Every structure is written in structure tokens, then in C-alpha cells.
């Protein structure tokens, strides 16, 4: 498995909760003024929903499950995906509560890694953005070739989202 979660995340050495972002500029850039960057990111990524979806990942296998699950149902199963990762500590400090709920991808293993994140304060998301900016951790990209590698891996594992016939344990 060449796509390593740890190397993608850089500084982080603990499990993370992954949020897919629609486009890289939604998260802004380290060269942007921090507070206007936080306002933009909060508005672009979090303002739409009261509760937002995250996927927990602590291993490379779980990262593959999330990527393949999120790409299931798309026009190509090897689409690139941009993620931003949050640590448990950052979510706690931002007063964001996590509740385990089933995801709605075509991969059961990915669905079991899904959580709903619920803010307790009006400025929870803004605080979360500022915490991650302060850590200097940037979003990371799963490229098409990495997504293809993950797809092959999940096919070998018999994932029902991509393998015919499915044989993975999570199908039971």
C-alpha cells in the first residue's frame, strides 16, 4: 500500500477525522490573512449544514475504504479527492460533538467509519479552522493514480462497492 495516511497528513501522528472539500481554495492558503481565511473557510465548508459528515481514519486501509466509498457512484471510481483532517483534540477544543452514524456510500466499511459532527457553539467551526491553521496542517489530495491503487486494493479485499461478486466481511 503506497498511499500512507501519516505521510499525507504530515505532522499528525494520531487518528484523524476527514472532511472532503469541494475545491482547494475553500480552505484558503497559508499566505492569506488568518481571520479572513477562517471566515471564508467556515462559510465555504461548514455553513451549509447544521450537522456535517466526517470519516474517521487511523490506518491506510481505512483511508482506502473512505476514498473508495466516497468515489462509489461517481462517474469515475478513481476521481481525485481533497481532504482536510481534524484531530480529536481540535474537535474537542472547538466544542464539536461527534456521533457515530452510518454513512451513505456504497462501501459498508466506509459507512461504519462515518460520524456526524455537531457544533455546540455558534463559532465552533471558525475556532476549528483557526486551530488547524495554527497547526500549519494543510489539506491533502488523493490523486487519480492513488485512488486507482486504493481501488485495486479494495477489489482484492472484495469490497462490495467495487468487486463482483463481493466477498468482504462487511457485506454480511
Amino acid at each position, binding site marked *: 500500500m503506497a498511499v500512507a495516511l501519516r505521510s499525507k497528513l504530515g505532522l499528525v501522528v494520531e487518528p484523524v477525522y476527514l472532511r*472532503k472539500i*469541494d*475545491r*482547494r*481554495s475553500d480552505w*484558503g*492558503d*497559508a*499566505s*492569506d490573512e488568518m481571520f479572513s481565511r477562517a471566515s471564508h473557510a467556515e462559510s465555504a*465548508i461548514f*455553513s*451549509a*449544514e447544521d450537522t*456535517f*459528515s466526517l470519516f474517521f481514519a487511523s490506518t491506510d486501509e481505512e483511508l482506502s475504504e473512505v476514498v473508495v466509498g466516497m468515489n*462509489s*457512484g*461517481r*462517474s469515475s471510481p478513481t*476521481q481525485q479527492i481533497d481532504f482536510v483532517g481534524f484531530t480529536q483534540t481540535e474537535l474537542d477544543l472547538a466544542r464539536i460533538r461527534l456521533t457515530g452514524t452510518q454513512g*451513505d*456510500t*456504497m462501501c459498508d466499511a466506509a459507512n461504519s467509519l462515518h460520524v456526524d459532527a455537531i457544533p455546540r457553539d455558534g463559532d465552533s467551526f471558525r475556532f476549528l479552522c483557526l486551530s488547524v491553521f495554527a497547526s500549519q496542517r494543510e489539506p491533502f*489530495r488523493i*490523486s487519480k*493514480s492513488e485512488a486507482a491503487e486504493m481501488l485495486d486494493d479494495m477489489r482484492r479485499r472484495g469490497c462490495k462497492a467495487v468487486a463482483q461478486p463481493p466477498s468482504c466481511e462487511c457485506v454480511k
Partner: protein
Amino acid sequence: MIEATTTGSLTSLEQDEGVERSRFLSILRRYIQARGEDHVNLGRVVNAYLKFSPNSNQLINELISTCVDMKVSGRLDIAIDILSQLGKQICRYANDFLINDITNWGHRFPERAYEPNDDYWFILLRSVAQSSASATDRFGVVRKCGKATSRGVVEAVVESLGDIASEDAMTELKKYLVHEDPFIARLAASILESR
């Protein structure tokens, strides 16, 4: 062809267009909310509307506008997945839209510089770039937007050049390594590194 009335009431043709638009939007909303097999199957119906409707340009605009205004994660991908399957049709639409958007803006806001909708252009350019049209056609559309000043549109151009990945596109992409916006320069570098 039915001629327009002088009474202010809708012509049959306009009524038909209105019905078609309503049906399309209803299916589009179901497609956006559906998951799994239902999502895939409804995507085929949406695609058929866009390919075969006599008002396909209007429906393409409806689809992009709906996804731009939606408040859900993945809204841009939803539109790109559908529109990129239109091949040359989406290239033609993008070419026409570029001219019309600038012209319409000039009529509405004659004293303001053109301010494109970032999300609209992100969807349109990446749909073109990921389509099955020839690399030359795709590159031609994307390059026309290369002089944009908005970060969002330049981001769309850079990502689209990476999608096209032809020799011309890669040569053009390298020019963005020295872009004045560090975000754009870093994005171009990361795309080139992943090749």
C-alpha cells in the same frame, strides 16, 4: 414553430419549455439526493435530458446554477460528473457561455469590471477538461480563461490543465508555478508533482 402571442399569455412552446424545465429540475433534485444504484440510474436520465432536449443549453445552465446554489458537500462534483459526459457539447456550451456571460455582464453593470461566478466556472471548466472531447478542443476552452484575475477561476484553470494533461496543457501549467498568488503557484506545483 408557434408564434408568440400578443396577449401576454404563454405560447404552447413556452408552456412546453416550462413543463420540461420543471420535470428536469424534479429529476435533478432526486438525483442529487439519491445514493448508490438510484444515484447512478437517475444520473443517466439527467444526462439524457441534457443530450437530447432541444433546450439543452438552458437545462445545462439550470443544472450548474442549481449545484452552485445548493448547500451540500459534493455539489460541484455532482455537476461535473454529469456535464463531463457531454463531450463536445459541453465545450460548445462553455465557448458560448464565455461570450454571453461577458456581454450580459456589460449590459447589466456597464461600469463594473467583469466578475465571474467562481463556482459556475469551476464546474464548467472541469467538466470540459474531463470530457471526451479532443485534448485540443478542451485545451482551447480552458486557455481562454487563463487571464482571469479571480483566484477561484484561476484555480479552475489550473486544475483543468491537470485534468487535460496533454503536452500543451502541461507546458501551460508550468507557467503558473510563478503565479503572483502563492496559492495558485503551490497548486500548480502539487499537480505537476503528482504526474
